[in-house]
């Protein structure tokens, strides 16, 4: 139920009251910040939002904060609400991520992330392609050969269709020159437990997820990692990238923060400054290390450019799949 439903956190009662008061941005910066999380408590966006909240308060970057959770449909229930309720509010932050890009396209949401002000990409997780330990496949090259030889016989376990896992599988298949309609992609939900079980039980040929989800099983030797979706080697992760193995595919399950629509330039700049100050704190670095998030900080305009690319790549895959027009 948790991942399907939205919820108003206990602290959120006053969120609506402060919204739209239009406090002058420059005069008293961030006495109070409203964090809007378009996912249910306990999920990835929620934990990101709560960690941001914790770090901001602990370091005196904001005095108080309110958290609102509105989950469901990959964040596309929360997004329109945020746009309506927080229009022009310089103290509001919206948590979003790669999953929402796909969900907006497939759900044909009338609003999109382009209406918001990109503040910063904060963290990200690279995707990993694994095979069960018992699999005869040892390298990415062998995997690609197998895929070209008989695409249907290669079964992939991953998350919901249109999500980062699925897009990654499709990008690999495209690189192999295999039509996407012929993929045997098996979608699982429920926190990745069932997908993992099918891999550990050696029931599928390959699996896809974020590195964090597989890390312990890879270390234990239960799964063999063939490639990671990072553009270049990631320190402390001993997995070769797809790019260095001659397959030009990169993707990141990023998470970041956005400001409300129709902010003045100075107001957006203040939010970017806040995010920049936050990622430099010791507490933030500590949290990244504990939670195994990789630092993918990218502020303001650079984030906007990245987002545009991500949307285009996602849309093209989804169009090939028939999930987008």
């Amino acid at each position, binding site marked *: *139920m*948790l991942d399907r439903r939205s919820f108003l956190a206990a602290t959120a009662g006053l969120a609506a009251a402060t919204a739209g008061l239009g406090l002058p941005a420059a005069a008293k910066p961030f006495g109070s910040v409203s964090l809007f999380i378009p996912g*249910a408590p*306990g999920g990835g966006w929620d934990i990101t939002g709560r960690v941001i909240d914790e770090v901001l308060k602990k370091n005196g970057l904001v005095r108080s904060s309110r958290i609102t959770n509105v989950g469901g449909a990959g964040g596309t229930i929360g997004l329109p609400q945020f746009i309506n309720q927080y229009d022009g509010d310089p103290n509001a932050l919206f948590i979003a991520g790669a999953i929402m890009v796909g969900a907006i396209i497939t759900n044909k949401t009338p609003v999109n992330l382009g209406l918001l002000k990109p503040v910063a990409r904060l963290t990200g997780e690279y995707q990993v392609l694994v095979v069960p330990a018992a699999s005869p496949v040892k390298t990415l090259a062998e995997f690609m050969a197998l895929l070209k030889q008989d695409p249907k016989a290669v079964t992939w376990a991953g998350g919901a269709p249109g999500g980062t896992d699925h897009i990654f599988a499709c990008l690999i298949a495209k690189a192999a020159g295999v039509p996407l309609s012929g993929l045997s992609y098996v979608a699982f939900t429920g926190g990745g437990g069932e997908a993992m*079980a099918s891999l*550990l*039980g050696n029931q599928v040929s390959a699996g896809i997820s974020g590195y964090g989800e597989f890390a*312990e099983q890879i270390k234990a030797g239960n799964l063999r990692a063939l490639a990671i979706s990072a553009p270049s080697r990631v320190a402390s992760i001993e997995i070769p990238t797809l790019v260095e193995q001659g397959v030009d595919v990169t993707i990141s399950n990023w998470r970041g923060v956005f400001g409300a629509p129709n902010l003045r330039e100075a107001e957006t700049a203040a939010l970017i400054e806040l995010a920049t100050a936050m990622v430099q704190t010791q507490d933030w670095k500590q949290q990244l290390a504990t939670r195994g998030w990789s630092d993918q900080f990218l502020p303001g305009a650079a984030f906007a450019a990245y987002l545009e690319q991500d949307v285009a790549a996602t849309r093209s895959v989804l169009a090939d799949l028939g999930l987008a027009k």
Partner: protein
Amino acid sequence: MGSLSGLLDGFANALSPMNLLWALFGTTLGTFIGVLPGLGPALTIALLLPLTFQVDPAAAFIVFGGIYFGSQFGGSTTSILINTPGESASIVIALEGNQMARRGRGGPALATAAIGSFVAGTIGVLCLSLLAPVVVRVALAFAPADYFALMVLSFVTVAAVLGNSLLRGLASLGLGLLLGLVGVDLQSGQPRFTFGSLDLLDGIDVIIVVVGLFAVGETLHLAARHRSTREEITPVEGSLWMTAQDWARSWKAWIRGAFIGFPLGAMPAGGAEIPTFLSYFVEKKLSKHPEEFGRGAIEGVAGPEAANNAAGAGVFVPLLTLGIPTSATAAVMLSAFQSYGINPGPQLLTSHADLVWTLIASLYIGNVMLLVLNLPLVGLWVQILRVPTPYLYGGILLFATVGTYGISRSVFDLVLLYAVGLAGFFMRRYAFPTSPVIIGMILGPLAEQQFRRAMTMSQGDLSVFLTRPISLTLLVLAVIALSAPPLLAYRRHRRALASA
């Protein structure tokens, strides 16, 4: 370190006075959210996750374990007393439990549920301590084809709750299957029956249908009939406590329920509902008093409640041995581990053995705490039945509304709740059984997804269901379960004729 010495160390860690207070807090809170329709343990634990910033891991897991088992128990209490299951796994308990309560046997029903929970929890925690590595290997052998066969077997249980009219029962089942189809299809990503509404993309929450059909439907039904026919509810008749016969009929059901619940709970796609369905079916078939089913058979409470609780312990098998979360609650617990900088995986038992054993011990302490809390309260709970019906059901309606709004803060869900409630009213009015709706809604999507996964993996080869030994065994069991009772009845009939 051996399992037993590990477990004893775990108890030593968990049994501090402060931790017992945390356990009390957790079980009490859990019981409350279980009583409140809608709010579930996953959401409550998620909201309490910031607790992990403040207290040591043992205390946090003790609270979470308490909430987990407490909410299961609270859900059964409302099911029995006022026919209002707070969660989908307790609908089966409402079937017999509420019938018992209406006949003045609410006390024994609550007692068998409380003791059954305790017995099953104990068996579950013991199996978790001793058998987890074995059970998990079996669980991993289950492929989608086998899960599909398991769902087919579970569908057989519908036969036990169809009521008097086959046609009406199947119509209810069909409605449930239809409701289960709403939302984005997991395999293709295409929306089905959403009519362009964003609110329906995630599908219809089973909880809303459970609360709507039972709590709202029941309230409307009683309101409509209040003036014409007085519903006779006997608060207490005979002993408040279980009689010798109750004990004799309960204990086997507890044990059977526990051994159905634990392995299914340990399966990555097992869940807590399926074991309660299967246990109910088994109890009805094995009972010496099958005619009492539907009118308050105590085995029908004892078995499913035990199955529910043992499944709750089973969920920890994949979580603690492999780091795989298989339910929403387990997923939230996993993020609690991560808050302490621990990444649960196959090494959890070796690298953080103390924490694992503390968690297991705290589950056990939660179980004992629940028994201690709830048995003396049975007398108090039963007093609820003395509240005049209009006030009682007014209160239920209020809690159902608040609870549903609490899950999602969505007005759409409230409208849905009352629409389903209205449907539930008419179903009661025209004698359609409501349980098949829930069973269809839970099993339908599971069966469909597993079937299509199996088909993708076998590249469309249907024979996969017959060539896999597990799948074949389960399908054969399903055929036997369906065909044996009529065949036996036919033989008995023949013999009766011959001897006459």
